[in-house]
């Protein structure tokens, strides 16, 4: 039958993806398990990972905090956009998309200019006679950078889900005696759960692995796992250790998104029941 | 024909005559669409052969067969306008432009859509889309046109119009139509030949009148119109016994004392006063149907459907008469005992099955 023939079209793709996604991960595993000097098999790299667990913990913590802030800020915005007229929706959607297309390096650099001790914000505050705030170099600045960079990744999936919620469901809930808050908690929120989960994933994954934001906005104490990995490759010349760290990071992300998807699955079912 | 390891069609042996309007009729899942797809070339049978003008076309792909199809829900190309849809096949065949133009215009006038060339598909009504689909298939001048439930998506009135329209087009073009439907009324009113199918097998082939008047088994009897089907014993030629009584009938050729199914059409039964009838029963329900009443009568625990223009009230005791020509005798089949009892009769029954049919495939 004809269908069998078109399956062949995906052959090159499967080959390509195996060659350039799975095998590289295998090579990474190989590096993680070999000695940088001798190339012999060793568990030393994995053992030394213990050193970096606090850093990983910091990264995860920052990313979770930024994801939650993004959700808190992004949800009302997505909700607001989803309830505009179609043309306004398009315009606002575009305005959310636009920053994502521009160099995030330069945009983050602009935050340095804004937040520096003698940066724009402090100059303005000084002129208003309100003293200065020391933000740069703190964990707050790093989280701000994360929120700034990844907020659109939260708003877009949320918007996509909220805009699809059938207005009749809300009317039905009102008809059944729900007040505004109840409608939100019992209908809208459960229905937007898939968007919330994908938004959190889309913020969490890049945030936990970033190194640029912490380099620029962070200080001496805000080293993240991404920085460590970058340093292993670009300064310490220890790709084996770097590979081991990447492996750890990948597994951690896999586990986190896995847990989220499992929760998501259950919540989704709950949502359908409502 | 097997599909996903399941036998879908079994022992289909069909002959199509030239310029014939043939209908494949059956409930959903009976294999009629599968048969059509095999003829159209979208499926290859696991065994058996498809012959066209005496040549085996099993290995001829769909796009090389001189057969065209009007699809369920039309499958019009949404990115093309009416003209683009109709001219599609001709353009693929690389006909000269003038000829394409002429043929499209001709067919548009046949289906009554002249002037609609540059309308977008979305802006057409269901009936208009239907006509475009037919025109798109016919413009290629196929030898056989396959129609897969073409009227299923139309409302009742439009469906009636289109039935006449299709018949007219078929006669005007003079080609073979193979028509798939689950609607027995449609099948009976349009076809030259009706093929009743169920469970992947052909149950009966014949002219509409023959199918209605002389169903071969309980399935056909029940599927085509309403029937009361009773167990009986054929005592000898023209004598059948049921409900403890011997009736005269017009059928012959059965073995002596052969158990048979007896079919009595609800509209053939005449009411008589209780004392004068062959059988006496009690009316249990009366439904007004417009042209007639549907009356359910209980005869010793067996409920019959009787259609009559006379009103009888619930609880009334009535008698009936059965004339020999009203009684039709069938051999016992696997369907015996499955149909023909109206004890769970409900007026909505028919509509429910129809909905289920619409969801086929």
């Amino acid at each position, binding site marked *: 039958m004809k269908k069998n023939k078109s399956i062949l079209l995906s052959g090159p793709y499967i080959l390509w993806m195996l060659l350039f996604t799975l095998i590289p991960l295998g090579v990474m595993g190989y590096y993680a398990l070999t000695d940088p000097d001798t190339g012999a098999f060793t568990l030393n790299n994995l053992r030394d990972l213990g050193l970096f667990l606090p850093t990983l913990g910091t990264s995860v913590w920052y990313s979770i905090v930024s994801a939650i802030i993004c959700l808190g800020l992004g949800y009302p915005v997505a909700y607001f956009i989803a309830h505009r007229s179609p043309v306004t929706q398009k315009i606002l959607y575009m305005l959310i998309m636009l920053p994502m297309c521009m160099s995030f390096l330069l945009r983050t650099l602009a935050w340095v200019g804004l937040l520096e001790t003698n940066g724009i914000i402090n100059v303005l505050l000084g002129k208003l006679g309100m003293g200065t705030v020391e933000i740069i170099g703190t964990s707050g600045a790093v989280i701000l950078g994360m929120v700034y960079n990844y907020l659109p990744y939260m708003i877009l999936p949320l918007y996509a889900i909220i805009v699809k919620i059938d207005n009749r469901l809300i009317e039905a809930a009102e008809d059944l005696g729900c007040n505004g808050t109840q409608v939100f908690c019992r209908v809208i929120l459960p229905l937007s759960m898939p968007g919330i989960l994908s938004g959190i994933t889309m913020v969490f994954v890049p945030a936990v692995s970033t190194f640029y934001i912490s380099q620029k906005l962070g*200080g001496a104490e805000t080293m993240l796992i991404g920085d460590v990995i970058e340093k292993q490759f670009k300064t310490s010349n220890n790709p084996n250790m770097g590979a081991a760290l990447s492996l750890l990071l990948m597994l951690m992300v896999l586990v986190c998104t896995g847990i989220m998807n499992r929760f998501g699955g259950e919540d989704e079912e709950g949502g359908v029941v409502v | 024909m097997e599909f996903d390891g399941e036998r879908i069609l079994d022992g289909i042996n069909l002959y199509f005559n030239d310029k014939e309007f043939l209908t494949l009729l059956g409930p959903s899942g009976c294999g009629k669409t599968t048969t059509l797809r095999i003829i159209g070339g979208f499926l290859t049978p696991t065994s058996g052969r498809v012959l066209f003008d005496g040549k085996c076309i099993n290995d001829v792909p769909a796009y090389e067969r001189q057969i065209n199809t009007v699809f369920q829900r039309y499958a019009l190309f949404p990115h093309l306008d009416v003209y683009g849809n109709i001219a599609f096949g001709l353009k693929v065949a690389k006909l000269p432009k003038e000829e394409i133009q002429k043929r499209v215009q001709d067919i548009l006038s046949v289906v009554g859509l002249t002037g609609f060339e540059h309308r977008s598909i979305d802006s057409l009504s269901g009936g208009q889309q239907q006509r475009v689909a037919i025109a798109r298939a016919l413009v290629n001048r196929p030898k056989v046109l396959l129609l897969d439930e073409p009227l299923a998506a139309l409302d009742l009135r439009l469906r009636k119009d289109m039935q006449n329209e299709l018949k007219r087009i078929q006669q005007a073009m003079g080609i073979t139509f193979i028509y798939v439907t689950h609607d027995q009324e449609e099948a009976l009113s349009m076809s030259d030949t009706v093929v009743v199918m169920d469970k992947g097998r052909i149950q009966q082939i014949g002219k509409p009148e023959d199918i209605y008047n002389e169903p071969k088994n309980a399935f056909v009897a029940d599927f085509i119109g309403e029937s009361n089907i009773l167990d009986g014993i054929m005592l000898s030629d023209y004598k059948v016994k049921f409900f403890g009584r011997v009736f005269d009938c017009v059928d012959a050729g059965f073995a002596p004392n052969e158990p048979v199914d007896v079919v009595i059409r609800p509209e053939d039964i005449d009411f008589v006063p209780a004392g004068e009838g062959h059988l006496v029963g009690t009316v249990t329900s009366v439904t007004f149907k417009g042209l007639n009443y549907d009356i359910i009568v209980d005869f010793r625990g067996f409920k019959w459907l009787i259609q009559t223009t006379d009103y009888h009230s619930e609880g009334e005791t009535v008698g009936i008469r059965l004339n020999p020509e009203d009684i039709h005798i069938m051999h016992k089949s696997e369907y015996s005992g499955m149909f023909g009892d109206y004890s769970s009769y409900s007026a909505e029954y028919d509509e429910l099955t129809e909905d289920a049919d619409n969801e086929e495939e």
Partner: protein
Amino acid sequence: MKKTNRILTILIFAFLYLPMLVLVVASFNTGKNLTIFEGFTLDQYKALFQDKDLLALLGNSLLISILSTAIATAFGTFSAVGIHSMKPRLRKTVMSLTNIPMTNPDIVTGISLSLLFVFIGSALLHQKESLNFWTLLIAHITFNLPYVILNVMPKLKQMNPALQDAAMDLGCTPVQSFFKVTLHEIMPGIVSGAIMAFTMSLDDFVISYFVSGNGFLTLPVEIYSYTKKPMQPRVYAMFTLLFLLIFVLMVAMNLLQIRSDRKKLIKQVKPVSSRQKTFRRVCAIACAIAILLGCGWLILSTRQNKVTLNVMNWGQNIADGSDGTLDIIAAFEEKYPDIDVNYTTYDSNESLYAKLAGGGLTVDLIIPSDYMIARLKQENMLLPLNFDNIPNYKYVQEAFKNTAYDPENKYSVPYTWGTVGIIYNAKFVDEADVTGWELLWNEKYKGKILQFDNSRDAFGVAQFLSGISINTTDAEELRQSANKLAEQNPLVRQYVMDQIYSIMEGENAWIAPYYAGDCMMMMDANPDLRFYLPEEQGFNLFIDAMCIPTCSENKDAAEKFINFLCEPEISGANMDYICYGSPIEGARDYMDEYLAESDVIYPDQSILDKGVSYLFLPAETNRLMDNLFMEIRIAGQQPEEEEEASALPVVLTLSGLAAAAALLFLPKRKHK
């Protein structure tokens, strides 16, 4: 509720656009600083269009993203059709393969790909330049493919399968029916997939950063190294123009969509004449060709029939023509028109070493410091120079010959020399506190102190303070130095290299150890900055010298460049910009008087005698130093005396693996 939502939305949009506004404003600024607007000018735009390198980078980026998007779109669309016709279970497996690059952090994708490319290129094919244009293209296609597939698949699912049957019924072969019908149906998916792929590819930094060599860089990767240095405002001008371009494109696309939505409502479709159709097609093809040609031209215009000389130097370490200095590279290219210099930078000896040892690139000329030269020599990573090609070697002062790192003068020609001292801001730092290296440990200036972000220099500072030899190999002494650095950690605002410029000039930190020449440049920008050399405790005296690594492919051109830089006039002009001492006899005479007389650049011989050079250290010492430094960076506390060799992380990793596997496979079972 609704009102607060509206206000919040406005605030969020302000939050999103504020930094972009800052950059746009900066592009019209006469000053270089992001913070202070000095006056309106369009000069940056003029500079942008004269900056061939920047335009070439933009061309590179466009070329890579257009090519990768085009290939991924075509490839992905066909693959999606194939995947669509699979049985559900197989399709699920393939889709989880597709999801790998989507769910993996970019850094993991980038690293795994770069390891693969280097592994194949260097270990299997013995290529010198295993990270190049093609690896970058492959990486971009790989992460673009899922975007296309994930956008096309739903459209295929939505499509009425009878449409394909209908096309075949009307005489189309399966291939024809794909092009005539299926393609039209899934077009919206293809377009949105392509747009997503293009924007992701154009703005990708992380993956490109790991996968590109030095031969072919994209704009974001180069911007990353720009952001470490004081940024050239023309980059802001480019940002503004790109912003405008993308804005216009997006608005145009939206308008087109709104128009086509409206069109659908109108019943009568205007017939499109075949002439119009041909016209449209010709336009589309012309656009595509124009874009490709444009990119090609941008790249080729800088590299026509030329030998490419790949130079890798420290950031801010060659005169580039700004502020009235000589543009050395331009002068060299003018003298040797057949040589094209591809100039990239690194910010520490260690990162240079990592780049060279990591493999995957071609470098013809490097300028490492003394101890690194010794290390590279030891590891056979340098080629001996042919001094017949470097007649100007005669100008090199005797003091810079027969050095410890190159006693036979075989591998290196000195470029600059200098000292490491303390730069501080006199406005905030009490002169009385400036007594020695302990200034960097002064609690008073907590949060205003910077430290080197490379182990050797940072350890050096601690060792001078503690009176430990900076060339010690004793593990105990190294731990002591590390403890000293750990003690300093709570006071340190940031560990920096090239970023130091903006931080010190902007007075965001007050005290930092750094290289004298760079300090001189900063002092130029901010007159409150002072340089101090703790001569009593000792300080590092270093020589940066030009060497040719073994991965060089144009040794002759590299030697020509070395010879060129040894000309006293050129060297002097160069020093005017980089503010270091020149080892070339007579160069000082060509320097700006103010610089030539500066005791930051040319301290007294008596002081110089107290300087100590870094010597080559064995690999295990380097590794120990790296590890100790990393511990300080990540822990911010005293490093543990002896790292406990526990099996805990191994167990953790493996259990993580198990948990992940379980999570991936359990839901599948649930559904059955």
